[in-house]
């Protein structure tokens, strides 16, 4: 195991066994037979380790889903679904840590700080997949809005993560349902919908019948 990974898993073990962070970097480094200085070569702080755990999990998932044989045949919708399913499957092995880690985050607007690294990975992935979807015509290119699609996916991700933390069903089947239904709804909104047609119709009327639109 790489020293970096070793530090990560030893940190996870520590917080799970003790229910709190180690007293100081010094103590923690010493327990791992490192000097404090060496520790800083790998991480800047304990928060840095936590962020890395999340981020690595996401990169691992992305690598894994892209490796599937069916990947090139999947639509954008299916690619995102696949990422969600695989991520929460992998996260199962770290459920206690996730609950502990996210539980101690103070409720505030926006996403928890520990998820920052993960968010970067996630957004890179979604941007790429969404771009493909826009190019293939699967998704509707709307001025201004299509740039925000990835934010909608991120919100969806946060929602499922919270749902999963509270999910008590066997095998987290409810989470599977939440993903399937939630991601599908989100993608339905990304696609051409009656609203688009309505909007276009309004535009057409405004241009052709001299009706002044109230907006």
């Amino acid at each position, binding site marked *: 195991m790489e020293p970096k990974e070793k530090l990560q898993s030893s940190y996870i073990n520590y917080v799970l066994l003790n229910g709190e962070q180690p007293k100081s970097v010094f103590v923690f480094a010493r327990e791992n037979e490192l000097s404090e200085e060496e520790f800083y070569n790998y991480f800047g702080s304990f928060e840095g380790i936590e962020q890395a755990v999340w981020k690595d999990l996401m990169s691992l998932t992305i690598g894994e889903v892209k490796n599937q044989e*069916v990947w090139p045949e999947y639509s954008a919708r*299916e690619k995102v679904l696949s990422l969600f399913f695989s991520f929460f*499957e992998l996260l199962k092995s770290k459920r206690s840590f996730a609950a502990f880690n996210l539980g101690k985050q103070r409720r505030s607007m926006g996403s928890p700080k520990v998820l920052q690294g993960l968010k970067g990975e996630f957004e890179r992935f979604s941007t790429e997949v969404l771009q493909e979807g826009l190019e293939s015509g699967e998704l509707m290119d709307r001025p201004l809005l299509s740039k925000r699609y990835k934010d909608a996916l991120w919100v969806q991700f946060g929602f499922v993560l919270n749902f999963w933390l509270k999910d008590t069903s066997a095998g987290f*089947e*409810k989470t599977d*349902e939440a*993903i399937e239904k939630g991601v599908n709804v989100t993608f339905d909104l990304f696609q051409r919908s009656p609203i688009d047609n309505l909007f276009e119709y309004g535009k057409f009327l405004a241009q052709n019948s001299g009706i002044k639109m109230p907006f």
Partner: protein
Amino acid sequence: MSENIRKEQNSIPTGKVQRSAQFVKTGIKVGGNYVKHYSKKLFNPDLSRDGLNEENAADIYNSLSKLKGSALKVAQMLSMDKNILPAAYANQFSQSQYNAPPLSGPLIVQTFRKYYGKSPDKVFDKFDLKSSNAASIGQVHQAMLNGKKLAVKIQYPGVGEAISSDLKLVKPFAFRLLGMSEKELDIYMREVEERLLEETDYELEVRRSIEFSKACAGLEHVVFPVYYPELSSKRTITMDWLEGMHLKEYLQTNPSQEDRNKIGQALWDFYNFQEHELRAVHADPHPGNFLITPDKKLGIIDFGCIKEMPDDFYYPFFSFTEKSVLQNKEETLKAFRALEMVLPTDSPAQVEFYLRNYSEMIELFTKPYTSGVFDFSRKEFFEQIYAYGEKIARMPEFKQARGVKHFIYINRTNFGLYQILHELKASVRTDTYLPNLQKAS
């Protein structure tokens, strides 16, 4: 589609599409109720779910009453209206909840990873991620392994848990809508819930499918797919792919009377063999559960719903198929008491009333059994049953639910069988597998 719905008034919808047309509508309404509920809740966070549940129950009940075809008329006749309703209600409910869009490819991959530890294309040589059929609580996919064509049934996630929690939520309102007390209906409701939950247990279904197909292997013109327990799991069932047509399609090919009789006979034998030899029966005679194979055999593809019959139900119930029993008042009354069709609290006048009416309808209903050969194409028989059912439905004495809980599924099974045979216009020998009324003690 709208035409189909209109037709439902005089015939029970049999095609999957036809039935689901009704269910889809309910599903949409129920979905709408949720939306309505949550938008109200935005402004009034204290709003309880009671209103929502009631609205759901009402919508489900409404669409259910549209389905009230001949099956329910007969149920009324047997004064089982109120105990068959919860079954129909529950079915309706679970179906309206689960006429979900097909599962996405990634979810299927996910399900496989969960239960097999690898993706479907690693388990099989070839696996079609697009489903070929919808099953009631899942969907069917085609796969290939070692040159063999297989059918893989995958259950929608969360169905099992949802069934019991949903039933519990809507139950009190359902009772009120049906106009009876919860206590009165509870034993029937529990019976239904038990069966519905069994249907979600795929491991049980595989075990039973293997057992039943083995036990029924000797029957002529009946075929079963081979099941593969090692390729099945809690949420998936793998079996051979049976080629064939569903009943509706088959009838459109204008089969000869000889072929109809052959299929009809196979169906009759299949059911009566189970009831009288195995004392447990495939209790879902829905046309979608059968296939007519290219060599004109009856293929049976779903063992999700099995009803077992205990002795204290079997003997009194089937004793009526012997003419002598109905002619002997004492014997008849004994059987009625055992089946709780006559209750200990009934007054002598009531006993007399129920005795007369139940005897009359049982005589009608057991006609196929007492005839030796019975022609199910005869409309008169069914018309007689319906007419009788309507008459009885108007009698206040039959407002109360009567009879032991086993009636629900056994009546559904037997009447379902009559209905399919009627559709087939088959004439069958009904003395092939007779009730075994000698107690083995």
